[in-house]
């Protein structure tokens, strides 16, 4: 632990820290462009210059200089001030003065730092460099004249995303950042370079010229496009969500989000259900809330009622529906829409037990039936880090393009019954072995066979440092899954049990992936926000709120309970889901035991205490023994990464991404 002096104050810094980190620990702000905590050190912007003794009598780039015992660092000397002014002046030589028409304006590192550390005036009156704008696909808008060559985007795509797409070609003054032959950046995390770009060179194409940052209301939220539960910031103006940005949470999404999480939000204003509808003579007609409720109540279902939860539901909605059904005497609850019926008696057996942070430290990983890259792009980032540390990865399932190498052992689940010897040896020799079972690996005996491997390999073990390592993981696909399972949204036989019960009324809570033809004799009441598959099959549509329009509790696939806030109001007559279910209880003449949201949350916390506090829910480490054999060819559930949920399917941006990036259609560009 070296001791250094920063501006005369002595502090102790961790071994291996850089001078920049030492200055930050001492509370000094060091301006920087190329340096980023999560990327490798480039040291090419020179903005972080400080004075360091002992050393050459000149300013030094603090981001690339290790902090050593006895260093005297000055960040406030005349030399440092002059050095910063000089670097700033050089950077601005070729940077256009187009801040008024630049989307980065107001949240631009260059703008902020030139105000804070620049000279205030320019002495440059020669011609400025101009660079042609590059195509980087439907999500990233480029204005390369603004580029200051920090190479953060290059390092991100190489190091974090693992897809070498962006590079810096030519050299010196002619250096240009581009994708190869200006092809679209097409991996699932590509838009993160927009956040990384310290200037306005890479900006958001769908959000171009929409708003200035200071006009936006910022709300803390949780993403529901996959089961990772990425922490997001929802930026809204008036009644519209304009964009979604990642929030930093080192345990979940670090500071990235997937392109779907970021850009599906334009779907929130399209195909919305904003009035109640009732099917009359085979046609859906707009009706009043009163009429819709009396139509349902007149059926008088009694306990012949069931509920299916959709993939993006908050726990409060599921709990309210559970209470309603309970009051009516039914417990027909199911959340696994596509008919899966794996055993959920132990939640530890269907949870991502290792956690996203610790999976990075695993040294041998077996992935069963999960195309991690599309199912959970942020977990894929973690796996890449694990492999960089030396982990061996084996995969069972059809081959897909991984970003971390790995060896495919076969396409059929039966590989689980008898793993190849070398894979078995690698896993049993590992100190921190892990398994990840994906959606496609759960059914057909896959979960049980995986659990049996888990117990043979002793995936739950005590590590040398005394902590418990639980290497058994299930990677779910839907944001509502773990919350649903905690609330009992699982029948023994899956959704087939609901079909067998033939309920008079089926509550489809944002459920769009259900095969509704099997419920032909039930009245399907769709409570949701988008006119998608569920609404098409519904007899009654009750318009509800999307994830940005309600407070909610979400549990991600590692069992992490997180709260999301309401950013905007739902459109038209749409109401928050729990109020609809509360009103329905009145229509049925039963009591559910809560009258406002606080009471609902309190009742939920009383019933499932884990949902009452943020953080990881404890499911214990006891895994069922499993056993049996698995068979069947694995087919990954996600066919189109950009169109997996009703919001994304309604989003023009996601449709364009799907068409251009996945299906190779001609680039649809507006005439400019």
């Amino acid at each position, binding site marked *: 632990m070296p001791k250094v002096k920063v501006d005369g104050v002595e502090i102790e810094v961790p071994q291996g820290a850089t001078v920049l980190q030492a200055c930050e620990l001492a509370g000094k702000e060091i301006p920087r462009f190329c340096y980023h905590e999560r990327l490798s050190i480039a040291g090419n912007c020179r903005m972080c210059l400080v004075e360091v003794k002992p050393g050459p009598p000149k300013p030094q780039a603090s981001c690339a200089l290790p902090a050593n015992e006895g260093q005297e660092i000055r960040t406030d000397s005349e030399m440092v001030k002059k050095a910063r002014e000089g670097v700033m002046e050089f950077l601005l030589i070729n940077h256009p003065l187009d801040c008024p028409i630049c989307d980065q304006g107001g949240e631009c590192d260059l703008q902020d730092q030139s105000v804070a550390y620049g000279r205030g005036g320019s002495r440059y009156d020669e011609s400025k460099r101009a660079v042609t704008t590059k195509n980087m696909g439907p999500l990233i808008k480029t204005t390369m004249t603004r580029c200051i060559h920090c190479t953060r985007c290059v390092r991100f795509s190489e190091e974090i995303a693992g897809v*070498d797409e*962006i*590079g810096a*070609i*030519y*050299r010196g*003054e*002619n250096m240009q950042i581009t*994708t*190869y032959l200006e092809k679209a950046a097409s991996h699932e995390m590509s838009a993160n370079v927009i956040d990384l770009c310290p200037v306005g060179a890479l900006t958001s194409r769908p959000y171009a010229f929409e708003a200035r940052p200071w006009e936006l209301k910022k709300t803390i939220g949780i993403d529901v496009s996959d089961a990772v539960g990425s922490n997001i910031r929802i930026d809204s103006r008036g009644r519209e969500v304009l964009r979604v940005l990642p929030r930093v949470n080192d345990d979940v999404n670090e500071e990235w989000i997937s392109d779907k999480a970021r850009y599906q939000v334009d779907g929130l204003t399209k195909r919305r259900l904003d009035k109640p509808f009732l099917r009359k003579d085979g046609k859906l007609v707009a009706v009043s809330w009163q009429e819709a409720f009396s139509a349902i109540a007149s059926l008088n279902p009694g306990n012949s009622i069931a509920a299916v939860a959709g993939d993006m539901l908050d726990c409060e909605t599921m709990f309210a529906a559970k209470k309603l059904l309970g009051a009516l005497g039914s417990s027909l609850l199911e959340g696994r829409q596509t008919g899966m019926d794996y055993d959920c008696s132990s939640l530890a057996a269907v949870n991502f037990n290792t956690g996203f942070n610790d999976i990075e430290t695993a040294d041998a990983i077996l992935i069963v039936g999960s195309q991690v890259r599309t199912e959970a792009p942020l977990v894929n980032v973690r796996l890449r880090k694990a492999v960089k540390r030396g982990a061996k990865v084996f995969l069972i399932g059809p081959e897909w393009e991984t970003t971390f190498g790995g060896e495919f052992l076969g396409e059929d689940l039966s590989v689980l019954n008898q793993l190849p010897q070398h894979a078995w040896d690698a896993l049993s020799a590992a100190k921190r072995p892990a398994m990840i079972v994906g959606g496609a690996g759960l059914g057909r005996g896959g979960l049980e066979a995986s659990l049996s491997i888990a117990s043979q390999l002793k995936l739950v073990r005590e590590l040398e440092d005394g902590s418990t390592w639980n290497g058994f993981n299930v990677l779910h696909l839907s944001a509502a899954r773990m919350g649903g399972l905690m609330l009992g949204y699982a029948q023994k036989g899956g959704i087939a049990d609901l079909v067998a019960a033939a309920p008079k009324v089926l509550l489809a809570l944002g459920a769009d992936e259900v095969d509704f033809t099997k419920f032909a004799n039930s009245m399907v009441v769709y409570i949701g926000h988008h006119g998608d598959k569920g609404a098409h099959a519904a007899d009654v549509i009750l318009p509800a709120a999307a994830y940005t329009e309600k407070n909610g509790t979400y549990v991600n696939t590692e069992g992490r309970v997180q709260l999301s806030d309401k950013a905007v109001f739902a459109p038209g007559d749409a109401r928050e889901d729990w109020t609809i279910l509360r009103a329905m209880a009145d229509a049925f003449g039963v009591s559910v035991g809560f009258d406002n949201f606080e009471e609902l949350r309190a009742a939920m916390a009383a019933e499932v205490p884990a949902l009452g506090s943020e953080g990881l829910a404890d499911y214990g480490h006891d895994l069922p023994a499993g056993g049996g054999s698995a068979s069947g060819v694995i087919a990954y559930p996600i066919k189109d990464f950009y169109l997996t949920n009703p919001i994304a399917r309604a989003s023009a941006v996601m449709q364009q991404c799907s068409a251009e990036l996945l299906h190779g259609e001609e680039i649809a560009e507006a005439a400019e």
Partner: protein
Amino acid sequence: MADRYIEPDTPEMRARWGNFAWTPENAEKSKDVLSRYPEGRQRSAVMPLLDLAQRQVGAEENTQGWLPIPVMEYVAAYLDMPIIRVVEVATFYTMYNIAPIGRFHVQVCGTTPCMLRGSDDLISACKKRGMKAGHISEDGLWSFTEVECMGNCASAPMVQINDDNYEDLTAERLDKVLDALAAGETPKAGTQEPGRHTVEPVGGPTTLKDMVTENHDYRGEW
């Protein structure tokens, strides 16, 4: 620096170079090059292999050689590395030609020592032959680039033509060299000053004269 650009990717280019592959000799050479790098570091061979590919292209079309996009893709695939990393290397170093080039690439040094010794005359001599920066002359023989210091200041002015340097030039001497090249001959590389071998002082040594005949010990005279 001269303006450089990658020759655009066109169907014609794909048709001409799309099935580029090493010739048998170059396949041998490329294996030899690869073997110089430790296991797992084969990508380091990208520079020698790009040079080899450029020479093979040159041999095929009888020019100095350049790197069409499909050829860069071939090298990338050969080394199993991302194509953008290969393009970065090829566009960074000016000895890789990334656009078509003539039979002879005349690179005239125009930095101060050469300029003081008359490189302007050399440039106008080149221009007289139809050479123009960034273009191939109409007969396909010449490409012209004005470059910065090539490190031959002791025998300035100089030009580099393909793999050889020609030094101590005047407009007339350069004309002779270019004529010889155009006629298919191989002019003597290096200094063109009669009686000079390399960059030794013209007219005999001016310092350390006693060292000419014996290993003279100067230490007592300091």
